[in-house]
Every structure is written in structure tokens, then in C-alpha cells.
């Protein structure tokens, strides 16, 4: 697996966050000896690792984050301790393996990955027990189990039920972590403009492939997305949707109403909480419903008297009466936040 410098930096951030959680929360949970503390710690770590996966959606990135977290944990302890080493690596490996079944990042993939990773905390004592004492330990455990079940008057077959309940609890904790990771990724992406990074990567890949693509043959495109559904627009597409006019700082612009664009992309503007416009340099502006549903809030593609000037095109936002930072230039993406 080969990552770019930018991706390595992002993986470092999420590895550091997981490491920080292992060092601080791990020590606290270990001291408190709460039930399911191992599962909770694993879920927190995997939530962070999968949020990182959202930003670097490439094979091996979850494992990479796990390796960084493991090494930070070992640094904090001061020596190589086998338990955390096996635990963190196994959780990251299982999550990575689960994500292999999904071609594209999805909430379902994240839920499965985190569930499997957290399930490891239930399995690890059996694994380390086998490693340390060998198979014969299970004979003693089973005998003890039968003796215990006779003592409390339970059928030994009830063990299966108890293990199933424990496994289900671990899976649910993991699933919650995976669900949270997907939401956190979307929230952070909306705040920071993930598309600036992804856009850069896509541009590099397209340049490397050197094959004609729709973007090259039809000119610049605008992306309208909610993270799950994505639609691309060329200048001609936008002109077909609308040709409204609005003014900002004494300049008249021509463009499409933002609400009409959102409707065309398949989103109901009335059902959205916010809309974010992201520029090519990663700058983003967020709009509340009162602004993005206004009739004169435009995604402009031209000036009334000619094309947009070079440093504001190919698309820009025009929100009359609002300050400059809500009128970003060189917009590449509109993100709908439900």
C-alpha cells in the first residue's frame, strides 16, 4: 500500500487520536474496571480509525491507522506489551478485512467493520489463553463451566445463550461505533471540504491515466452531493436549469437558483438543514435554509455582460446582501446536508 504525503498526514492524525484515546481513556477504563470497558475502548478506537478511512478511502488505511495507534500506545507504556499490541492490530485487521467486501465506502461497511473489530475483545482472552497455556486449558475451562452450572442450577447449554448475548452486545457496541464514524466523517467532510482533497487526488489520477474523460471533453464540472448521491453538472447543464440574475457588490451575475439546482440533483431544499459550497482551494461557506432557499441566491456561471473573470470562475456563489465570505469564488462542490 502506497499513500501520498497528504494521505500519510491524515492517517497520522487519526492514528494519533486513536493512540490518545488508548492512552487516556484506556487507562481510566482499566482503573474503573467497568463491564464492557474493552468493547467500549475498541469501539472508540475503531470509530476514529473508520472516520480516518472516510477521508482516505483506500485499501489498508484502517490497518495503517491501527499500526500508528499501536506504536503510540507502546511508546506510552515504554516497552512492547503483547496484550495491547495484539488487541489493536487484530481490531484494525478485522475492520480492514470487513471493508474489503465493500467496493465503495458505505455506512453498512463501516458498521460491519466496527462490529467485527469490537467482537475481537470477546475473543482475545480465549486467544491469549490458548497461546499461553495451550489447548488443554479449554478442557479445564469446560469442566469448570459444568461444575459452575451444576452449582447454580443452570443447564450447561445455557452457556451458548450467554455467549450469544455477550457477542450480540459487542456487535451492537461496534455497530454504534461504525454508524457514528460514518456520520462523523460526513460532518467533518462538510466542515472542512473533503472534496478539496479528494478532488486533488482525482485530478492526479485523471492526469496519470491521460485518457479523455467527460470532464476533459465537456469543460469544468460542478458536483452536487449529499455524500451518498452525487450528480455532476457542466456549464451547459446549468444553463438549461435556469438563467436568473442577481447582484453582488454592484456586479450583475447570471446563474441558476441554488434551490432549483438542489431540486434538480434530487434533494428537497425544504428537507435540508444546511448547504455548503466548497471552493477549489478547500474554502467552504455554509448556508442556513433561510439563505439557500432565497430566490436570489445563485450559483453563478457568468456575469450579466460576459463570462466570469478568471479568478472567480468557472462557478461562484452570489448571495446578495451577505458578506464576502458567503460569496465564495471558484466553487467546485455543493454539498447538501440533510
Amino acid at each position: 500500500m502506497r499513500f501520498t504525503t497528504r494521505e500519510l498526514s491524515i492517517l497520522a492524525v487519526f492514528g494519533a487520536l486513536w493512540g490518545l484515546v488508548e492512552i487516556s481513556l484506556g487507562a481510566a477504563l482499566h482503573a474503573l474496571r467497568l463491564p464492557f470497558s474493552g468493547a467500549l475502548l475498541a469501539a472508540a478506537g475503531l470509530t476514529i480509525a473508520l472516520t480516518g478511512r472516510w477521508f482516505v478511502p483506500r485499501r489498508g488505511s484502517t490497518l495503517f491507522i491501527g499500526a500508528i495507534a499501536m506504536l503510540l500506545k507502546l511508546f506510552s507504556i515504554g516497552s512492547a506489551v503483547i496484550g495491547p499490541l495484539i488487541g489493536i492490530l487484530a481490531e484494525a485487521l478485522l475492520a480492514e478485512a470487513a471493508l474489503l467486501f465493500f467496493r465503495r465506502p458505505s455506512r453498512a461497511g463501516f458498521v460491519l467493520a466496527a462490529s467485527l473489530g469490537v467482537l475481537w475483545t470477546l475473543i482475545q482472552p480465549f486467544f491469549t489463553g490458548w497461546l499461553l497455556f495451550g489447548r488443554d486449558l479449554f478442557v479445564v475451562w469446560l469442566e469448570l463451566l459444568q461444575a459452575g452450572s451444576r452449582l447454580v442450577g443452570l443447564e450447561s447449554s445455557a452457556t451458548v445463550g450467554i455467549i450469544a448475548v455477550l457477542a450480540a452486545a459487542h456487535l451492537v457496541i461496534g455497530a454504534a461505533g461504525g454508524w457514528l464514524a460514518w456520520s462523523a466523517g460526513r460532518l467533518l467532510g462538510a466542515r472542512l471540504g473533503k472534496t478539496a482533497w479528494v478532488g486533488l487526488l482525482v485530478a492526479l489520477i485523471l492526469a496519470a491515466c491521460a485518457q479523455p474523460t467527460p470532464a476533459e471533453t465537456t469543460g469544468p464540472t460542478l458536483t452536487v452531493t449529499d455524500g451518498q448521491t452525487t450528480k455532476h453538472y457542466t456549464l451547459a447543464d446549468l444553463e438549461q436549469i435556469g438563467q436568473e440574475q442577481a447582484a453582488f457588490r454592484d456586479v450583475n451575475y447570471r446563474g441558476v437558483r441554488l434551490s432549483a439546482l438542489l431540486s434538480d440533483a434530487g434533494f428537497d431544499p425544504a428537507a435540508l438543514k444546511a448547504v455548503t459550497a466548497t471552493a477549489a482551494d478547500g474554502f467552504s461557506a455554509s448556508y442556513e435554509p433561510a439563505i439557500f432557499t432565497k430566490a436570489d441566491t445563485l450559483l453563478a456561471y457568468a456575469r450579466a455582460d460576459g463570462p466570469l473573470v478568471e479568478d472567480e470562475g468557472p462557478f461562484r456563489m452570489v448571495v446578495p446582501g451577505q458578506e464576502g465570505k458567503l460569496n465564495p469564488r471558484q466553487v467546485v462542490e455543493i454539498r447538501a446536508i440533510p
Partner: protein
Amino acid sequence: MKLAIHTPGHLTVFVGALALMTLAPPPRLPLAGGLCLTTAALLYPAALRAPLHPGWPAALALLVMLSALLGGPLDHSLGAVVYSGAGLAAGAQMALRALVLLVMVEGFTQSTEISAVAALCERAGLRGLGFSLGVAVNLLPGLRQASRQTWQSLTMRGGLRRRRWRALGLYLAATAAAALRRAEEVALAAETRAFTPEQAHYLPLAIGPGDFIAAALVALALLWIVGFGILISS
């Protein structure tokens, strides 16, 4: 001249001991255990104290006792106590295996440098781990400071008194966003200095003749105890 063993050699010895104690046929287990403990005494004398830590002697004794009482038909007696011979043998084997592994784990952890673990991971396919690890280590103080400041801002604005979940979400998002912005700065700085993962050097990993000799001795021991052991028993 003293032959030095570095992390790869220590790792080989540890994995070899684990393989010996896992794969050796039961009649040869005492031989494997003796060999491992002798190696530990030579390489990691301080590690021999590991099984004396509070809890371990009692745990091992309990394991042997439980195995003797529950691990098979009760066909032997010692005074008034009836026990299983097969169970006692199995318990002794488990205790020996645990004893050896405790000592070897202690020896391995005492002799291993974390940076060498990172270097090994990098060579195992996690290319760029050295760079990321350096960034992560340097990010930790910044992350702590950012999270503390965000927390203080939230408490000063009373964000935790009402709508706690939303406040918690904002806290986490703000902390992660600050960290991501820092990562962006680091990436830009690295690219400005013409850093690329392809051209980056691997983390240094010391390796010498001692490591190869250790690997050869481990292979010989495995062949002698496990390989011949299986041949004899078949």
C-alpha cells in the same frame, strides 16, 4: 568479540520459543522448555524473575491443581486426595508452557526498541509509517491543547449544561477538525521540502551477524525438537 543481537534476532528467538512450545510433541515438551529457559537465562537473565510477580505462582499452582482434579479419570491418590494422573501431566505441561512464555515475553519486551518495531512494520508493507509516526508523535501535544481549549470554550458557554450530546459532538468535531487542519499544514510543509513517500528512507533497523546466528540456532532447535519429535512419534 561479543556478538550483539538486535530486535530482529530477539523477535526470531521469541517466535521460535513460541513455535517450540506450541508444536513440540508432549514427550519432548520438557526438553523444549528447558532449552527455552536456558536461552532466556543466557540472553535475558532479569526476565527469569517475571513468574515471581504477585499472582503468577498462585495462578500456575491453581491451574495444575484444577487440571489434576478435573482433567481426566480420578485414578491416583495422594493421602485422602484423589486425582487424575493424565490431568496432572496436562496441568504440568500447561504450567511449563506458561512459565516459558512469560519469561520469553518479558525478555522480548525488555530487549526490543519501539522504533525497531515501527521499522519492522514499515518493511512488512506499511511504507511511510515512519513519516506518519513522526507526525503523530508531534501532533499529540497539539491535539491535547486543542481538545483542552475546545472543552474550556464549551464549558464557558454553558454548552454542557443543555443539549449534552450535541455539545459532545461539537467538541469531537472541533478537535478532529483542528487536527486535520494541522495535518494539512504538515503535508504542505513536507511537500514544500520535496518530500515524497517513495523517496523517503526506511526507519533505521539494526541487524548483524548475531541475528543470523540466532535465526539459524532457532531453526536447528525447531528441527531437532519438533521435526525429529514428530518423526519418532510416527
